[in-house]
């Protein structure tokens, strides 16, 4: 394919990928009357009113805060316990066929439809008094993420030769310190890729957060966005602004960590 055709194809595809963003951004800066007054590609009388209302009337400050706390803690927890489990699965020959069956179970967890989860989880959290709390969501997301972490990390860890850590252990390291000092640094790109996907999945989850929270004390950004999609009334301006605020943190995050996206995957996950 000639270069010019290649680049114009790519440009067209990128245009399709970006236009919905642009349209949302555009709508979010329009005045209410202008939104309905016909399609324009940019706001002729731009206003930041819609954003002010998000933070002043619609609690978007709390939503963002909740999301950041919940995502950070739950991803950290699941990375630790998931990596430990993946390590055990790749380095030991376990009883009861655990090496294989554990992976199957982890995959199974991912397949359970979310709607099937929410009622029993609701009841459990209610019993423990954790409904509508950040801690409740953190616990659940930690569990759900763990399945993904085990899957990703076991394929990365399997790639790292045992000789290296065994050499460290001969030098006097315990198994855990060998893991920490030698194995983890080698698996860092994989760990990064795993963390990235976990962050995205957790930040974006809707159904579980929707069902287990009921006030801005614990509601996350996607739930906050959906509160603006009224059945009786939709305010398109604030809704568009909410979409922008909902997308922005994760887009920024993706741009910051972009190098690790493909590299991490190349190293192992898909083999």
């Amino acid at each position, binding site marked *: 394919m000639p270069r010019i055709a290649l680049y114009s194809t790519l440009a067209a595809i990128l245009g399709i990928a970006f236009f919905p963003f642009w349209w949302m951004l555009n709508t979010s800066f329009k005045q*209410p*009357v202008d939104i309905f*007054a016909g399609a324009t590609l940019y706001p002729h009388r731009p206003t930041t009113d819609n954003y002010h209302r998000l933070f002043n009337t619609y609690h978007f400050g709390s939503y963002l805060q909740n999301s950041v706390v919940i995502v950070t803690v739950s991803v950290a927890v699941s990375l630790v316990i998931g990596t430990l489990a993946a390590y055990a699965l790749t380095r030991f020959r376990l009883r009861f066929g655990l090496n294989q069956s554990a992976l199957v179970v982890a995959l199974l967890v991912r397949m359970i439809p979310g709607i099937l989860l929410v009622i029993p989880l609701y009841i459990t959290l209610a019993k423990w008094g954790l409904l509508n709390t950040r801690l409740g969501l953190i616990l659940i997301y930690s569990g759900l993420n763990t399945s993904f972490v085990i899957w990703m990390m076991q394929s990365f860890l399997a790639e790292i030769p045992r000789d290296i850590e065994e050499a460290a252990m001969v030098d006097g390291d315990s198994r855990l310190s060998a893991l920490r000092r030698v194995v983890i640094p080698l698996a860092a790109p994989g760990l990064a890729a795993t963390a990235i996907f976990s962050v995205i999945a957790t930040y974006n989850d809707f159904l579980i957060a929707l069902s287990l929270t*009921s006030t801005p004390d614990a509601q996350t950004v996607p739930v906050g966005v959906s509160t603006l999609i009224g059945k009786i009334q939709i305010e398109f301006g604030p809704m568009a602004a909410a979409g922008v605020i909902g997308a922005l943190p994760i887009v920024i995050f993706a741009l910051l960590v972009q190098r690790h996206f493909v590299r991490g995957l190349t190293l192992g996950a898909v083999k």
Partner: protein
Amino acid sequence: MTEDSGSIERGKAKGRGYTRRQVMARGALGTGAAFGLGPLLAACGSSGSSTTTTGGAASGSITIGSFTDPAMVPFRDVFLKKFTAETGIQAKWHETNYNQWYQNSKTDGLQKTGAYDIYVMDDNWVPEFAAGGIIQSMDKLGLKVNPDILEKGLDQGYWPPRSGPRLKAFANDAPQLYALVIIDDVEILYYNKDYFPTPPVTWDDIYNIAKTTKPPLYGWTARGVKGNPIMQTYLPLLNAYGGHFANDDWSPGFAGPEGVGALERLFQFIPYMPPGVASFDTSQETPVMLQGHATAMTEYTGTAHGVDDPKQSKVVGKIDFAATPKQVISGPAIGTFICGIASGAKNTPAAVKFLEWFTSEKVQKAFAETGSASVTGTALRDPAIAAKFRWLPAIADAVDNSIPKPRTPDEPKMEDLLGTALNEALVQAIQQKSGYTQIAQSHLTTAANQITAYLTQQGTYF
């Protein structure tokens, strides 16, 4: 999902031949320890007199949950603060969209988490919330009801209903007030005076003007989304043509000539409705009216606040209000905002106090002065206030003429079945542009059969 013993459990027990004692024992096992026997008996709605009293010592704070709606804005922004200022009781407010709040409040209530003291509800939730023990009987709490509250609005809060058909298991129970109306929302006709020199009275009047319109002007704008939205379009028509959502024996009353005629009338408007109407909800329907592109629509009163607001409206001063059009009768659908006190409420006395305060004469007048649909006749018909907000007397009349939806916990399912069939019929009629009678008849018959099958399966009706 829950073990508490409420009145529905008793009702079910009758139907299935459980003894009262068995059911009570089961309920007591689950919740006796947590809630004590007194509230348990109260929730059963059985023993004659109640020992629960509200007392005058309400204090602390209450949490109110609601769905987002323009009609709730003055309530939320003005009156909660006013209540705190007058009583010292803090009122916390949480709102989310309609579907989410229905799910949240229901699961919250079945689990009695105590996160909320008051649920703001749509009136068709009352049977389910009352029968399911999610909200408390206000009669038992001794809540004093302002006698000036419009009868039809107040009716929406009773379970079992004071009039109309009842679930078999509740046939002989005395109605109790479970929820108190706070906004008398009802459908009214919005029309543009530029096209209607005299107020339209019948559907024919609307249609005759509609026939003269050409895009971008439309003769009618409506909500066409499946389920609840298109039901709001259809019900005033169905009622006007003398049909019924449900007959007194719970059989569907919309598949006969009245219901078919009503739906055909809606189809006749197709050439004069904006494109995409089958996917319209309020947020697409009303801008057409407020941008001056439609001559008329039926809608709830929440939109009235916007008609004279230049930020939203290009037809300031041109929209007027009337009862929904007649054919046999005028039959607006009533859709009140209604408050229930959560069974798990942490501060029941303050919740009672709030509702008594908000429905008092003085506060209701102040509420009407924000242009809102007060619940008392005196506030709505006050000449001084009506001079400022011309839709208020129309609301009072519409409430008096309104026709409630079937009063059963299965109403959301019935609404979904009929509302899905209506939407399918509308989509088909828009595509075919002919054969309206046949389209209407076949979809309405399907919905009637589905509803009958569902109610039979539930086993609480026939």
